[in-house]
């Protein structure tokens, strides 16, 4: 291996990449846009409370006012009082809203007289917030019932987090998007580069120089490793500075930033080698990349997915990269991170060897 030749090839590839602004956009700007977008959607102040529309038909009573106050105090509901003249169900439908509560007439007098009285809760089962609304309203109703009979709760609740510190969505999003960068940039580029080199016979041209296959591959690994480090720095910066992500850094992240790009460079090359045209290479590349992008815990923790999808995720190489980064950066669980690193390195080695064997400078 001649390092001068590796560096010469690296310089040309870097220049080609930097002068092609589209590639740079997808490698660095795209993940930043994602972190700003998803960070703003899921980590913004007050964004965790669910809007609920309350029609208070017992408007002049202190009890109904206290009930509304209690709903607001849960911290998960954002109460918006609506006019009592119309039907709440129709109001919700006409305004495309999902959650509403009707406090019936005589609510205060029935409550004070110990007479059974129901508040009506409207939810949309297809909306993920319905469970939150039903749970919160049920809790408030229980509190009112206990107060009415002068009782105190016997079983209480202490809230604690699994981690030494509480985790937020942004904490998972940052490693996820680092994984996203590690996947997309090398994978899409190498699918395209390999298919293009084949079509325009650039591999043949290069084979007429002293550059070897190994040197060509190493220069690509170096470039995408540098891009992965750049993406890592950007993600951590925006995650912590803009959204207050709580992340732990460790040297064990470095092998993930090398093994990850190596894995996806090899996979991209493999796709480019085995397909017959640039177009078919692009299609096959997308078929492999997109499921991996969405099912490996990039945008949401794997634990929020259905069980069978969690099983599918374990067959995707990106899963182990993101799981490993989560182990280090979110859970500080280094021993599990080593396991995920070992799996990543093993998959990378297999695909690298396969791609290198199928990758031909010359033709028989």
């Amino acid at each position: 291996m001649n390092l001068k030749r590796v560096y010469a090839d690296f310089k040309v590839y870097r220049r080609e990449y930097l002068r092609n602004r589209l590639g740079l956009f997808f490698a660095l700007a795209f993940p930043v846009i994602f972190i700003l977008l998803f960070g703003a959607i899921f980590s913004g102040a007050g964004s965790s409370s669910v809007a609920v529309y309350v029609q208070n038909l017992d408007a002049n009573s202190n009890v109904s006012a206290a009930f509304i106050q209690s709903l607001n105090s849960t911290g998960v509901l954002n109460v918006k009082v609506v006019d009592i003249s119309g039907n709440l169900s129709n109001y919700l439908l006409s305004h495309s809203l999902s959650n509403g509560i009707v406090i019936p007439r005589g609510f205060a007098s029935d409550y004070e007289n110990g007479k059974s009285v129901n508040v009506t809760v409207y939810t949309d089962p297809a909306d993920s917030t319905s469970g939150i609304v039903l749970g919160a309203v049920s809790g408030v109703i229980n509190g009112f019932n206990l107060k009415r009979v002068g009782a105190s709760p016997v079983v209480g609740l202490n809230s604690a987090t699994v981690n030494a510190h509480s985790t937020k969505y942004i904490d998972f999003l940052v490693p996820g998007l680092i994984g996203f960068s590690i996947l997309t940039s090398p994978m899409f580029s190498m699918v395209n580069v390999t298919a293009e080199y084949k079509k325009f016979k650039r591999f043949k041209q290069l084979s007429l120089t002293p550059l070897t296959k190994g040197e060509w591959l190493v220069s690509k690994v170096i470039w995408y490793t540098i891009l992965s480090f750049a993406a890592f720095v950007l993600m951590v910066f925006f995650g912590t500075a803009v959204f207050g992500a709580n992340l732990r850094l460790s040297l064990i992240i470095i092998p993930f930033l090398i093994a990850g790009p190596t894995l996806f460079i090899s996979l991209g090359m493999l796709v480019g080698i085995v397909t017959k045209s640039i177009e078919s290479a692009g299609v096959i590349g997308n078929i492999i990349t997109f499921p991996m992008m969405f099912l490996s815990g990039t945008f949401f923790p794997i634990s929020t997915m259905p069980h069978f999808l969690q099983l599918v995720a374990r067959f995707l190489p990106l899963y182990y990269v993101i799981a490993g980064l989560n182990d280090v950066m979110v859970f500080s669980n280094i021993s599990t991170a080593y396991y995920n690193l070992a799996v990543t390195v093993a998959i990378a080695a297999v695909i690298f060897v396969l791609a290198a064997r199928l990758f031909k400078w010359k033709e028989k």
Partner: protein
Amino acid sequence: MASAIIVDGLEKSYGTKKAVNCISFNVNQGEIFSLLGPNGAGKTTTVEILEGLRERDAGRIEVLGMDPWRQGYELHKRIGVIPQGFSFFDKQKPVEAIQYYAELFGVKVSAQKILEKVILEEAADTVFEDLSGGQRQKLGLALALVNDPEVLFLDEPTTGLDPQARRNLWNVIQGLKEGGRTVLLTTHYLEEAELLADKVAIMNHGEIMTSGTPEEIVSKYGSGKKIVIKGGEGVYSAIVRSGISGAFRNDNGEVSVPVRDRRDIISLVTSIESAGVTWGDIRTEEDSLEDVFVKLVGGTMDEGELRSKGVREGNSP
């Protein structure tokens, strides 16, 4: 003179298709040798085998005394190649491309001097995607010269270029010959081969149909000198009636007649005059390489595609 390239009984098949069928030729050092033939004749396969890019099925080949397939890595340091349809990275400038190749070959070169040699200095800072077709081919040639090669393989270097760009590149190739380099040039332009090559081999269907200097080939397969007379049916009939054989009319209203010496010319003119028909300009002509190619291959070439030639009236093949 020592041989730079030796090909003896070379064979190559793709599946059941015989791409190169037992061909042999030698290229001496300092010579321009042209493989001439239509698309699919086997030229590129032959060249790629000589460059060490493809493995042969049978035969003996040597380039600079080396077996290209087994000693390709060493050979590539001593040869230069413009592959067919040369392309480079879109965003690189010629200066950068030359620097890249120089670093790969581990040699120190002046990019400016190489660009001057191929007449590309005005586009030194233009990225590849903005170069014209001719400039791109010149860059290919510039890269082929970076390692100061002893043998150059130019695979259809002027295909697709406009006539002016083609002539520019011919000048550059002639300059290389004057510099003493050995050049193996494949082309489907007969004019190019005739102008540049010391020796030519005409290939078709994987076989060499003939080889030698253009003059030798024309002399061997050409029909010799002929008289071309401007005139119509009357002139043609007068010649046929006088018993002179081999006359034929071409599409330009001319009659062509093979002649051996001056006496034939005098007798031809006399017979036309005595017939009292009107005739115009008269000139002597000799077969060109293209005429010979048509005879041997049975068609003309249009951008490498072989087109069957129409039957010529009164002419025997």
